[in-house]
């Protein structure tokens, strides 16, 4: 039996309301999404393009979002997939073994280079914002994705695993190694080559 025009109209109205609600919620999260996006790519322009592609896709596929679930993670999943599709797959992942040092490495290097250092506060002052941003962008992307999502995006291991579509164990190993690579890069930028 065909639905009466009235019922159909009501359904359309309900759908429009749900869609508007979705769009508004997604836009409210844009600042937080951008903070992650900005550190997943090298330039501001790339981040802005990626944001627009992501939001265009999110608005198109809003029906596949389950209300009440984590919308920020849902958007970030679209964003990281698009980022990977943008030619990243073609890049060969460099051998990272030589990029990694143990966890105390950075502190030891900074302390050595700071003769007057008495505490860790003074040591950390050697790191400038430029040092940090530069070091982060030098971390190979698979590792950087994990570090950025967890340490800057505040996602849990579980959420990060869902966003990147990898097992939780992989997230942990990439995160731990990514942080070590970051610290090794920081040591290099802040106090020079090894």
């Amino acid at each position, binding site marked *: 039996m065909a639905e009466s025009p009235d019922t159909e109209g009501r359904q359309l109205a309900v759908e429009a309301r749900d869609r*508007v609600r979705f769009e508004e919620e997604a836009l409210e999260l*844009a600042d937080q999404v*951008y903070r992650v996006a*900005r550190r997943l790519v090298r330039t501001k322009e790339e981040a*802005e393009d990626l944001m627009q592609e992501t939001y265009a896709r999110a608005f198109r596929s809003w029906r596949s979002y389950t209300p009440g679930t984590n919308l920020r993670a849902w958007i970030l999943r679209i964003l990281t997939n698009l980022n990977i599709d943008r030619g990243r797959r073609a890049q060969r992942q460099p051998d990272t073994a030589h990029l990694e040092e143990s966890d*105390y490495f950075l*502190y030891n290097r900074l302390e050595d280079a700071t003769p007057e250092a008495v505490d*860790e506060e003074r040591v950390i002052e050697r790191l400038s914002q430029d040092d*940090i941003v530069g070091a982060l962008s030098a971390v190979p992307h698979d590792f950087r994705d994990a570090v950025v999502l967890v340490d800057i995006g505040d996602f849990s291991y579980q959420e990060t695993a869902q966003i990147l579509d990898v097992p939780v164990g992989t997230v*942990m190993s990439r995160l731990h190694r990514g942080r070590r690579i970051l610290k090794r890069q920081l040591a290099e930028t802040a106090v020079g080559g090894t």
Partner: protein
Amino acid sequence: MATFDPCSWCEEVLQPYLDRHLSEREQAEAQTHLDKCGYCAKRYRFEENLRQVVRQAAVEEMAPDLKQKLASLRTPLF
């Protein structure tokens, strides 16, 4: 047999310790070591500070016109 070096072990568990992903027993063992080892305690505090410093340094706010562009991608109501 290699001798057990508590500082090396402590360095190994630095990240899972700060992420609270160690077992209760390991967490307590690390804590016991940190309470009496200034060398490791200093490096743990540094790591905590570093995470804050990285987070703050990495934040870059989005340009206001991008926000408008994103809003314009919404499906028109009519």
